[in-house]
């Protein structure tokens, strides 16, 4: 049986999830040149926010048609609050500090968020069951779940809305101006602090959309889920060209597909029989990152900027 279409679909789905999370890294970097290493944990808190809505707020037996939108709202609110709170109380006081200071703060915040969820969210020290959408559909040689349909539709809607917002809306225009030249943006009358908050909020909401998709697809979440997903999404953002929103989308898709393909087919290459399978997927993903950094350090869609370290 030809497994290629199925594997391509799997890669595309995984890549959409990476892309949604990567938006948060790339927008924040584009505007304040900060790698928000706590973004994976913002994704994680979004998942727990959505879980809270489902298990503790909605009455039992609510249909998923009603539950999923409300979970998106709940997860979105939590992730946005965490993201905006991090900006306001952790990063903003360090705006003028050497770049290493906010970076280390981000790593500390990431650990702190994990520990808060592990210690204070009921049952979060182990994996917690998340309502899943498991009904499958056969489309020729490809089988997908309801959760996959949700993910692909949500990613497409979010990305198109963002592209429109950044290019056409007044705030989006202000965002581009702030990313290109923050001092001069202020001279135009743009409140750059507000723009920075908007960037964190959009990143947080997109992470929450990815988090709900993750839960619906895999059926459980845990306090460490943000670590690897965050790292991969960061890889996707760098792969696509950090600071570029289309790069984040493209980088996510390329990474998801490449990783899935490598895990499935690389063991067919003579001499590489041991290197296939899911356990090697991360290795191939990060190999791809290394390759891109060597051959095209600005990323697939990035611009060559000499003074950016």
């Amino acid at each position, binding site marked *: 049986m030809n497994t290629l279409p199925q594997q391509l679909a799997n890669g595309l789905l995984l890549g959409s999830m990476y892309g949604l999370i990567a938006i948060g890294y790339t927008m924040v970097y584009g505007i304040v040149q900060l790698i928000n290493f706590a973004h994976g944990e913002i994704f994680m808190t979004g998942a727990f926010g959505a879980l809270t809505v489902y298990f503790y707020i909605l009455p039992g037996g609510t249909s998923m048609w009603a539950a999923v939108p409300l979970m998106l709202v709940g997860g979105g609110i939590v992730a946005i609050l965490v993201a905006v709170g991090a900006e306001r109380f952790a990063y903003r006081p360090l705006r003028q500090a050497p770049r290493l200071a906010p970076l280390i703060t981000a790593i500390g915040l990431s650990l702190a968020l994990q520990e808060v969820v592990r210690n204070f969210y009921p049952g979060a020290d182990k994996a917690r069951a998340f309502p899943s959408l498991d009904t499958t559909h056969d489309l020729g040689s490809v089988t997908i779940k309801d959760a996959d349909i949700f993910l692909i539709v949500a990613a497409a809607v979010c990305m198109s809305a963002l592209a429109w917002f950044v290019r056409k809306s007044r705030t989006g225009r202000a965002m581009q101006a702030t990313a290109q030249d923050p001092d*001069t943006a202020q*001279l135009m009358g*743009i*409140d750059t602090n507000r723009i920075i908050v908007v960037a964190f909020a959009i990143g947080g909401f997109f992470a929450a959309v990815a988090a709900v998709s993750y839960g619906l697809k895999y059926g459980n979440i845990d306090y460490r889920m943000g670590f690897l997903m965050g790292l991969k999404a960061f890889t996707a953002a760098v792969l696509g060209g950090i600071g570029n929103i289309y790069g984040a989308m493209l980088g996510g898709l390329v990474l998801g597909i490449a990783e899935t393909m490598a895990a499935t087919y690389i063991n067919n290459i003579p001499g590489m029989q041991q290197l296939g399978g899911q356990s090697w997927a991360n290795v191939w993903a990060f190999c791809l990152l290394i390759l891109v950094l060597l051959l095209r350090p600005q990323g697939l869609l990035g611009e060559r900027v000499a003074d950016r370290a």
Partner: protein
Amino acid sequence: MTALLEVEDLRVAYGKIEAVKGISFTVEAGQVVTLIGTNGAGKTTTLRTLSGLLKPTSGKILFDGRPLTGVAAHKIVALGLAHSPEGRHIFPRLTIAENLQLGAFLRKDKAGIEKDIQRAYDLFPILGERRKQAAGTLSGGEQQMLAMGRALMSQPKLLMLDEPSMGLSPIMMQKIMATIAELKSQGTTILLVEQNAQAALSLADQGHVMEVGSIVLSGTGQHLLHDESVRKAYLGED
């Protein structure tokens, strides 16, 4: 008559280094006032402080009767003070039209904005021809035109121009200076910072010579243009 801009004993420091050491001057409505002086005299620091990008250590700034010290940069534009910064600082990856629209960021009158964009194209026809082009692809002189056009889009009561002739060819420099003269004749109030003292003083109603953070000499443009020490120090005469 009270001045549009009143600066009194303004001091600005970068850390422990004082760049502006207690300067005072005024700009009346309709005037062109110029600050001249060499690199490092504190001219750009003065403008950046007036537009709120830098915080003064002490001193008073009154614009249109309101104190400006402590007001955030993005709110100062709304009061009618526009700043075309040194080095032009156009938004390179946005188009010329988008750059001009950003100059009108705080305005709500769509029709008026369109009219003013058209005015900028009339003032600088090259901008109109290339309106859909990324601003980063323009030449230095064209970028300067865009920076000036963008600053005018906020309909300022006072236009501050920092080194508009910097790095331009003599022909382009003449064009820019002619445009400033045209704006002056239309009644625009301008605070002009220039290293090209000859050109700036010929245009100015009032001039101030800055040296290492202080104003050392003030007078009408014509007076300074014929002042012997100015001619020696800034106009390259022995």
